[in-house]
């Protein structure tokens, strides 16, 4: 019996998942009735008191609720009741916009820093100070200056995803092998053509690594940012459901945040594979 490693790993994954669901189910199932109480009181207290049910939803509750959400992902019943598809859509759009702006700024600026030791040294103190600032610390300043919560969230995404891309681009550009530059020099390749035909392809794997780190951070930050700005988005959904005391929905949102984050990372990983060259 020799199955491929991938197949055996999948079996182990499934077993672990089943075990996790089993333990979860056992931990949250109803125990026998706990105490005698008047029917009115029991009705008031709900299943938690009458059947000894845990306040934490079990896997079946979550599964049923998830199915409900998946059937109607895009409904819109007003500000506080929108389908999960719509909420995720808002979050992805914000991340996408902020991230795109960051790409537009970080890659050209990173090129400049990587190619010019002067600019690199001149900008270094600014980058060193700005980089460790928590993106959410910018939020009040953004809200005050931009005066729009949604754009402020995009700004926060921009500011958090710009640094890894900027530093990786600068590093990738500065670390292009001297011999490749020399090839371009001996062939009298102009600066612009050299940047696109030698430096960009040579630095692309490093740049893509930075972009992959950035998208991960952006997706981490959007949840927190939306909790603050409110209104729409998956982060707002989590906080709203917490206020509704719907732990089931919170768990579903957590699951979806994880899945979307994974998908975003996979997309960037695919791009990274496309530009990676074996040596």
């Amino acid at each position: 019996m020799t199955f491929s490693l991938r197949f055996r790993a999948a079996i182990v994954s499934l077993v672990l998942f089943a075990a996790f669901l089993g333990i979860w189910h056992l931990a949250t199932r109803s125990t026998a009735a706990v105490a005698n109480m008047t029917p009115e009181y029991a009705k008031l207290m709900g299943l938690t008191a009458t059947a000894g049910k845990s306040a934490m939803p079990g896997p079946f509750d979550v599964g049923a609720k998830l199915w409900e959400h998946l059937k109607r992902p895009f409904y819109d019943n007003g500000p506080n009741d929108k389908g999960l598809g719509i909420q995720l859509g808002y979050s992805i759009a914000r991340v996408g916009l902020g991230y795109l702006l960051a790409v537009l700024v970080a890659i050209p600026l990173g090129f400049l820093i990587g190619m010019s030791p002067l600019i690199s040294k001149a900008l270094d103190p600014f980058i060193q100070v700005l980089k460790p600032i928590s993106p959410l610390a910018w939020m009040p300043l953004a809200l005050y200056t931009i005066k729009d919560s949604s754009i402020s969230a995009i700004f926060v995404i921009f500011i958090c995803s710009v640094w890894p891309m900027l530093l990786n681009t600068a590093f990738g550009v500065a670390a292009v092998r001297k011999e490749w530059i020399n090839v371009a020099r001996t062939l009298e390749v102009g600066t612009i053509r050299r940047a696109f035909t030698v430096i960009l392809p040579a630095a692309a794997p490093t740049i893509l690594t930075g972009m992959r780190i950035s998208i991960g951070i952006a997706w981490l930050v959007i949840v927190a940012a939306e909790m603050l700005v409110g209104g729409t988005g998956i982060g707002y959904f989590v906080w709203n459901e917490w206020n509704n005391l719907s732990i089931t929905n919170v768990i579903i949102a957590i699951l979806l945040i994880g899945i979307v984050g994974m998908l975003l990372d996979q997309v960037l990983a695919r791009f990274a594979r496309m530009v990676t060259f074996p040596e």
Partner: protein
Amino acid sequence: MTDKFISIEGIARRYPGADGGRISVFENLWLSMSRGEFGCVIGHSGCGKTTVLNILAGLDEPSEGAVIVDGQAIEGTSLDRAVIFQSHALLPWRTVLGNVSYAVTSKWRKWDRARVKAHAQKFIDLVGLTGSEHKRPSELSGGMKQRVGIARALSISPKIMLMDEPFSALDALTRGTLQDEVRRICLETGQTAFMITHDVDEAIYLADKIFLMTNGPGAVLAEIVENPLPKDRGRIDLHRHPYYYALRNHIVDFLVSRSKNFAATVANHDPRNVPTVRPGLGDPTIVSTPKVVETHPAQTAAR
């Protein structure tokens, strides 16, 4: 030497030293070559061979002096001077054809795709890589990579081909075949070539003129050795030629002892008039006497 196709005129290269002073790799170096000649520089590591080549290529600048190629002082790099790098320096994200085409489009910007491809293909065929056009450098052996490097250099029809120990990273067998290829191509096309090597036999096989450099820092061009072997020499029976050992011993003697104590033993070495030596049967014969009238100690040292 009437026809000076390449003329290195009094170049020096100095680096800032640790204690604020200047460390001189070499000073006042004069060297010239005619069109169609194959020149080899031999010397120990640190004598500035690679620096000389980089200055010729335009990748480095001399601290003093000038280099004149085909009647013009060089300024920076040029498509007239192709370089074959020791590490082959292929662009790994491009195929064999892509690497050669990159050079071709750099030289002839206005050519259409089909013409570039046809031209590149011609040189890929020339170095014997037909069938591997669409492979990437990572799929090639070391020898094949260097063949691509040669094809890339030749494809732009350079006036001079500059080679910085191009075969030193290859195994002996591959090195031999590539030396054959380079010799064949240079003889067929009358290509002027300048090569740096550590390998005495490689220099004997390929070069018309061998430039011997003393040890650095403060290296000087000690002597120019003219290759007495016939033009149609073959790599496998090279060592059977009656002049072979005289030539080889002369170079090896230089590398073993004279390159170290050259400055101490030769008093008035004139870097502008370096003696040319042509080893043959018996003692090496001096074919061109330096213009200095007094008895030149370099001549006695050459024996």
